[in-house]
């Protein structure tokens, strides 16, 4: 087969053996992301297939302006139509694909349920069953109707669509943000809950409230056990309590029941994640070590690949052959030449050339080569 045809066949095999998917099964981490990421994070939005997951949003019957409210995305059909393994969940205020986070519509994200305050989280589907729920705590800044959407992106780890990226978005869910009842016992608008802390450290929370005469706080661990916290009033409408230290990265949640002269209120569950922050490292030693390693390798290659030094000029300097030859006696030079047998009177033997006579003349005269002299 022609060499070029072989190369062409090899290239075709290599190109066709690749898949057209670019899903990232390792995920991208939680954050604040537009819906555009549902395509762009998979490489090319045009490659996305439609997810068969069913999405819905649950929210409280009463959502008051300036007050925290739990908004929960419910994903149904997990591990049924797809083998997701990891799902990226978006909470969106529109489907514009850009500038569509809840922040763009006047929401403040107080908690993403995983120690952050973004609208995008990634959840493993291991052990979740067919229904996956995730809760955010939002706070609206204005009265009126607001629309929220749920979106997902994920891959398929097995089956005919293995490795393909999938994307899905829910219908809009309209939430009516109402004015707060005048004397409702409530969290003050300037209170922002802590969402993360270090492993091994207690967390003391100073809760600022309004129209509140009494506060009870309870917290729960990931296994669901609920424990009452001791609450102290430092001054009017300020309540202090301490959440115990975690011994490993994990998440606990707390909520407060506030009561006063007006209606009582129980806040949403606020998630607090315990994490290990990497130690601060001085960058200078790393730069210095990197520079040193690079320079050593650079120098090592140069030292090993040194030119040999045998250039034409150096050869001329050390080549003394002409001088030595000039010093040799002429006789010695003559002796060094091979002697040529004298030609017979009749000249060269028939059919012989001068060169043959030069080399084999003696043998001819001695009768050991050719016909010999007559």
């Amino acid at each position, binding site marked *: 087969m022609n060499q070029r045809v072989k190369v062409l066949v090899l290239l075709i095999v290599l190109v066709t053996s690749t898949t057209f998917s670019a899903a*990232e099964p390792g995920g991208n981490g939680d954050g604040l992301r537009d819906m555009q990421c549902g395509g762009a994070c998979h490489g090319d939005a045009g490659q996305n297939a439609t997810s068969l997951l069913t999405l819905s949003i649950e929210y409280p019957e009463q959502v008051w302006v300036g007050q925290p409210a739990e908004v929960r995305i419910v994903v149904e059909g997990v591990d049924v139509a797809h083998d997701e393994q990891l799902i990226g969940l978006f909470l969106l205020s529109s489907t514009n694909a850009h500038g569509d986070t809840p922040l763009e519509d006047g929401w403040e994200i107080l908690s993403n349920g995983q120690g952050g305050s973004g609208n995008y989280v990634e959840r493993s589907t291991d052990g979740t069953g067919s229904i996956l729920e995730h809760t955010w705590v939002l706070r609206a800044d204005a009265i009126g109707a607001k629309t929220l959407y749920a979106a997902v992106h994920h891959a398929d780890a097995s089956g005919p669509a293995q490795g393909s990226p999938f994307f899905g978005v829910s219908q809009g869910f309209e939430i009516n943000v109402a004015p707060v009842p005048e004397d409702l016992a409530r969290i003050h608008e300037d209170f922002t809950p802590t969402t993360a802390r270090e492993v091994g450290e207690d967390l003391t929370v100073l809760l600022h409230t309004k129209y509140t005469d009494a506060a009870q706080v309870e917290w729960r661990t990931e296994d669901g056990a609920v424990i009452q916290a001791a609450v102290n009033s430092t001054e009017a409408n300020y309540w202090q309590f301490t959440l115990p230290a975690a011994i490993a990265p994990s998440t606990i949640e707390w909520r407060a029941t506030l009561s006063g002269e007006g209606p009582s209120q129980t806040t949403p569950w606020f998630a607090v994640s315990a994490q290990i922050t990497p130690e601060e490292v001085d960058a200078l*030693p790393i730069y210095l070590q990197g520079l040193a390693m*690079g320079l050593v*390798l*650079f120098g090592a290659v*140069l030292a*090993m690949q040194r*030119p040999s030094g045998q250039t034409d000029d150096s050869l001329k300097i050390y080549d003394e052959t002409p001088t030595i030859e000039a010093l040799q006696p002429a006789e010695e030079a003559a002796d060094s030449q091979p002697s040529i047998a004298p030609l017979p009177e009749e000249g060269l033997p028939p059919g012989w050339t001068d060169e043959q006579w030069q080399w084999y003349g003696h043998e001819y005269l001695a009768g050991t080569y050719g016909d010999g002299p007559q």
Partner: protein
Amino acid sequence: MISSNTLHVVATELVVGAYALSGVAFLLCLAHQYLPGSIRSSYRSLDAVAHSAMLFGLIATPFAIWTGLSSAPGGEMSSPILANKMLFSMSGLGLASGVLLARWRLGISLWDEPRSRLTQGVSGLGAVGFMLVTASAGGTFSRGESLLDWLHLPYGETLLMPTALSAILLLVGIACTTIGLRSNA
């Protein structure tokens, strides 16, 4: 406005693509004596591809390092993976620079001598290896996966030397460079 993340992706793709091409060409150069005659006779072309691709990758490497530092979330060295990336990329940078300078000084005749051929080929492949491991560490940092996951490389651990030892190593590097540069004087 293009973000540092996007610029870093562009720069790293240029670097990795160039170095991958260079690596294949270096491998063929190194083993050209054992290859079919058609490839063996074209080692001059392979030499040109190997070194020009490496030169292109070398030019793009500082941009990749700079945009990588700008786009690193939480600071330049907030993760051991980022520290390893810096060490690997600087090592690859030094090795590639040495390979290119050696090729420029010795010419294509360096492939004629077994010793210089082995040094050039192994050094070129080493530079490519450092860059590919750097890219793999970047993939692990940003996406949690990379093509080299099957090697189970310990990206989470950094072998950081004391500053004094780094300074000594720096002096050794300067000495090696001086010896190498003065050898044909």
